[in-house]
């Protein structure tokens, strides 16, 4: 079978692909090459003579205890963020999938937070969950220091995870709802007739059949938590990496290092490490977890 039926020459399809290729070169490969170069040199902010320093930038990064702190925080953030977005999305999807009367508008409502920019959400939650004003003020009045993200790193981390989950649960919800709706009705009905309650049906039938979707979301949300633009925006607007580096996730550190510290080289080295880390994670996920996933 001739697969090139649509185009008889090579230049026409190339021409159509050209804008895309140019954009990818310009906005993906060019910066990537710059990062690669800067990671091994000392780049002065305004440009000019950059000295090749080999692995010195990486040594500096790895020698910094605060860097390892940020790796740990990133892991905790991405993991908790991923699990909570998927869990909330799943619960919402199961609820909407039951097709109770009046559930239609909730589809729209659950997706809505996804349309709100991360920094804006962060700003709002900073007020909503402020320890001295907002919802938690009365709890704090009864139990002093029960909730204080300006004081305890763990509370601050919970705060940014809450914002992240609030924003991204709607996204996982869409995928999970679509997945649930492709589960054959006959299976559910048969189980119901055999006397299975909704929880039993979810655990034994629906969730196993959702495995490919769940796996896809696991990979996507882990990556989003680690390198997503939202992660930076949320942290910058909610806690500013604090208190005392308590929410200093890797992307936040990179942006701060590059733009506040004007240390392009150190930030580039950190970016390369982060890219490497993401590749390792994705590999592990595909290699070990995907084996447990049944597509049929």
């Amino acid at each position, binding site marked *: 079978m001739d697969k090139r039926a649509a185009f008889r020459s090579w230049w026409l399809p190339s021409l159509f692909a050209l804008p895309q290729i140019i954009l990818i070169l310009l*906005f993906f490969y060019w*910066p990537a090459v710059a990062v690669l170069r800067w990671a091994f040199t*000392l*780049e*002065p*902010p*305004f*440009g*000019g003579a950059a*000295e090749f*320093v080999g692995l010195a930038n990486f040594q*500096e990064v790895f020698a910094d205890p*605060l860097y390892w702190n940020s790796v740990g925080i990133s892991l905790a953030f991405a993991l908790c963020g991923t699990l909570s977005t998927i869990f909330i999305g799943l619960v919402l999807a199961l609820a909407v999938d039951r097709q109770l009367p009046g559930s239609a508008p909730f589809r729209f409502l659950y997706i809505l937070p996804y349309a709100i920019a991360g920094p804006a959400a962060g700003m709002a939650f*900073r*007020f909503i969950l*402020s*320890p*001295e*004003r*907002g919802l938690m003020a009365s709890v704090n009045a009864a139990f002093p220091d029960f909730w204080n*993200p*300006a*004081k*305890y790193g763990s509370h601050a981390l919970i705060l940014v995870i809450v914002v992240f989950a609030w924003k991204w649960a709607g996204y996982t919800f869409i995928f999970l709802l679509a997945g649930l709706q492709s589960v054959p009705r006959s299976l559910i009905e048969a189980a119901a007739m055999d006397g299975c309650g909704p929880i039993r049906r979810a655990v034994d039938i629906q969730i196993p059949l959702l495995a490919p979707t769940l796996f896809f979301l696991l990979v996507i949300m882990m990556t989003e938590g680690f390198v997503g633009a939202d992660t930076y925006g949320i942290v910058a607007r909610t*806690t*500013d990496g*604090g*208190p*005392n*580096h308590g929410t200093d996730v890797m992307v936040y550190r990179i942006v*701060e*290092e*590059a*733009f*506040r*510290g*004007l*240390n392009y*080289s*150190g930030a580039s080295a950190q970016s390369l490490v982060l890219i490497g880390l993401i590749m390792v994670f994705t590999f592990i996920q595909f290699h070990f977890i995907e084996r447990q996933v049944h597509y049929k």
Partner: protein
Amino acid sequence: MRVSVTTSVFIGLMASVAFGAPAAAAEKTKFEFWYGLSGDLGERVQDACKKFNDSQSEFEIVCTSQNGYDTTLQNTIAAYRAKKQPAITQIYDAGTLDMMLSGAFVPAKKLMADNGYTIDWNNYFGGIANYYATAKGELNSFPFNSSTAMFYYNVDAFQKAGIDFKPDTWEQVEEAARKLKAAGFECPLAFNFDTWPLMEQFSAIHNQPLATKANGYNGLDAELVVNKTKFVDHVKFFKKMADEKLFVVKTKQLGMDIVPAFTSETCQMIQTSVADHGTIGKTLPEGVKWEVAMLPVWKGTERQNSLVGGASLWVLAGRPEAEYKGAAAFLNYLGTPEMAEWWSTVTGYIPVTKTGFDAMKANGFYDKAPYKGRELAIQSLSFTPTSENTRGIRLGGFTQIRKEFATALEAIFMQNADVQAELDKTVERGNAVLRRFEKTYAGQTLN
């Protein structure tokens, strides 16, 4: 990066529009000015640009806010690397050394001499000019919006608590705080982790160094020493006061920063910039009596001049010759006493030249109610001739160093970290920043 790419694309588009447009009636030379101020202050910059454009027919300045000092520096760097830089850019105090070593600017003195303006450089207040000048005292950039830190207190609260003195020393501040607390005021003094008043201004007026080599003026190999000066005792004092709930931490993260804490009468004393003078006057409820004073010193200290804050205007290299004529005309225009007076009236900033200040004093500006007290900022800045410790701060990566110290203060006040140990650690981290900066600019010397 996204911001800067968009910006440069935008600037590119603007440039092509500008070039493509048919040369209309008058052949005005257009040039760009980027600034960091936003909100009300940003509007006032636009007013200044409009005034300049209306004052002559030869040039047209196009002023664009970059929304924030740090983004202005970042966008300036991105634009310069893309060869799309504006003719003039506003860079904050902490970015001064980055600019000085960039080789990307035309020194103020050269610009004005090349374009036939004679400027009396001695007319600038020493405490202001030295921050932006070479070791020889020649200005690299033009001081523009200048401020210094002041001490604000609520006079009504003081009277209710039976305090009959003005807090000139920290001993008196403590006494006032105790009396206010006894009179039922929950938050006698509010503070946050901004190092500018607490560390930098405190060190200057007590003639204490932040770093060796005259705070970096004498070489890139300077090292931080602020963990061995009076600053350490000062932090310990603040910690003691905070533990006794006499001084209270007020930050955005906690829901209320220090200026709103003062203007809502939640807290009765703060130290913050004179640039907030206008806002405080406008925001405090009508009829509340408040005063402003120079920052307190410890008893027995010979007060030194305080440091200038704010930003200066840099003229960037690599623009067409004609634009420099316009830039020089604009900077000369800003320097006139009338403009200095106008600028200080509509903002909280202080006049940067002696003639500007004298003109304002002569017409009774500082005697009138909303502006009363602002002259103390000038007094504070020019209290003594500058010393090695008060000339300014010339440390590389200073924005990051500030952030490291703010984090240290956060650890000390929020998490009970040991004062000395935390400051030692932070000085070490700060020195690493300085060493990296030194390596990045290896072979360059300060002039």
